[in-house]
């Protein structure tokens, strides 16, 4: 079944790229192709320390893939290479390739800013900007150059609805985002990312700072959103991976040890190290 493609025209190169969906730069991403992200022999080092080693992983369209592993195993670092957020850290070296919709995002002429407009990210702790709820959600659109007030209002409403937050905030869109509860703030961060209509949503332990009820809402949200885009979620909780992810990748000491359908990975892991981790022998 050929699904309508959201990634029709697409370019990441710098020259003259003012608009979000810049004009047709012959995208090599074909209709019907299912890998949104593809990493090959991806290695990330901070100075001497190698944080991610030779990771090759394909991430499919409209799936939720969980990255699990003990603290310091490189899963967050790996996540941050997928939208080039690691560029903001001094002394990071990345080798290997990351292809987003068929484009190598570490190619020389690629502007990381444009990459980030196609890849949403939600952080560990809710980090709303000290602006109104509306301005938070409109932020990504505005920095990309959108000025049309009607379109902005519509996109903000749509994004808040998609993030299951609109009903709670529709009467106070112009109040400070900092007045929201932690769980609401985190859903606002999801809405903010969705407003830019990304192809991928990266989530770095999005529920680790939330209470159980907010966590449940966040997980429902993740599952629902997977109908529209693919989600890469880093999590400390194996139960969370079981609840939300169709596939799970296990990282250990910077290496990708094993990846597979979540249930299989937990019930019949192929690797000794995975077995030890999922049965709780270390972690």
């Amino acid at each position: 079944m050929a699904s309508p493609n959201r990634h029709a025209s697409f370019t990441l190169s710098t020259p003259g790229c003012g608009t979000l969906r810049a004009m047709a730069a012959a995208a090599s991403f074909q209709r019907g192709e299912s890998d949104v992200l593809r990493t090959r022999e991806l290695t990330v080092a901070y100075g001497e320390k190698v944080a991610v080693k030779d990771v090759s992983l394909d991430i499919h369209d409209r799936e939720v893939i969980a990255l699990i592993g003990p603290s310091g195993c490189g899963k967050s670092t790996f996540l941050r290479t997928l939208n080039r957020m690691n560029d903001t850290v001094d002394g990071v070296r990345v080798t290997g390739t990351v292809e987003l919709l068929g484009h190598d995002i570490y190619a020389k002429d690629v502007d990381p800013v444009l990459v980030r407009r196609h890849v949403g990210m939600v952080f560990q702790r809710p980090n709303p900007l000290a602006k109104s709820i509306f301005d938070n959600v409109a932020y990504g659109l505005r920095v990309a150059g959108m000025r049309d007030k009607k379109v902005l209002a519509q996109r903000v409403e749509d994004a808040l609805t998609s993030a299951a937050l609109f009903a709670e905030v529709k009467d106070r869109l112009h109040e400070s985002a900092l007045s929201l509860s932690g769980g609401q703030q985190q859903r606002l961060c999801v809405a903010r990312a969705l407003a830019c209509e990304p192809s991928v949503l990266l989530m770095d332990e999005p529920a680790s700072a939330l209470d159980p009820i907010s966590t449940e809402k966040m997980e429902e949200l993740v599952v629902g959103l997977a109908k529209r885009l693919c989600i890469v979620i880093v999590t400390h909780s194996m139960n969370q991976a079981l609840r939300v992810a169709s596939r799970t990748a296990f990282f250990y000491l910077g290496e990708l040890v094993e990846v597979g359908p979540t249930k299989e990975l937990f019930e019949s892991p192929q690797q000794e190290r995975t077995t030890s981790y999922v049965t709780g022998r270390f972690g």
Partner: protein
Amino acid sequence: MNSPAVRGVRSFASRPIDRAPGLITTALTGACAFLLILMFGVVLVDVLRHGLSVLSWEFLSQPPREGMTKGGILPAIVGTTLLTLLMTVMTVPAGVLTAIYLCEYSPRDSRLAYVVRLCVKNLAGVPSIVYGLFGVGFFVSALGSGLDGALFGGHTTYGKGCLVWASGTLAILTLPVVVVATEEALLAVPREMRDASLALGATKLQTIVRVVLPRALPGILTGAILAIGRGAGEVAPILFTGAAYYLPELPTHMNDPFMNLGYHVYVLATQSPNMDQTRPLLYGTVLVLLVISFAMDLTAFVVRSRMRAKA
């Protein structure tokens, strides 16, 4: 017979000898703190007592007359205001941009940033009279005379002490205040907010302009106002760079000399032909200077607390 598990204590009452160190410390620190209040009070009461009666519309709106024994201080008020305004226009943008470079753009182990920070620290420690000499040497002699030679056919136009050079000298003097305050304000903006902005596809410049600077604004404004307050009261840097002893006309051009409240105080106190007759005017001038300085500090305080409450 059961003996208690806890050792007995004869009494919990303290003896005078035990209390003495505490009492002495309290008294000593308290006395020093009180001394501070006393000093401030003496200054304030003295200035108010002698100065209030001098304050009048005439005093604020007339130039000095009759060997400064009559009239007012309008030129000094206007001169100080213009001087401070010009200084602010120069020092705040330069200071804020410097701090933005240090905090946002320079790499972490940057040699240049290290040197800049070192310079800022040292600038802050230079005595203000040295700035005055520097102002004459650099602004008046080098820059001003150079301009005259290049643009005015050697006719002395900018090669003398005047408003713009005095403001420039004060701007350099107050630069460290602005840089340090701005840098602290920028550092206090959480990294998470920068990350949020960048992850949404904002450029570094957009992040600074839309997220970091608004967040740092209260701190920057406080720094700016403190710098202005400092600049408004300084005399030494402008002694040789443009302040005039007596000048009834108001300055109208960048290259006009000007009167200044701080300098006027010095003149009235030491250079007057008739001390007894100028003394009341002296008090009045000091009072005006104090009121302006306090108003600045108060503004800084209010701005800071307002913005804190909002954030």
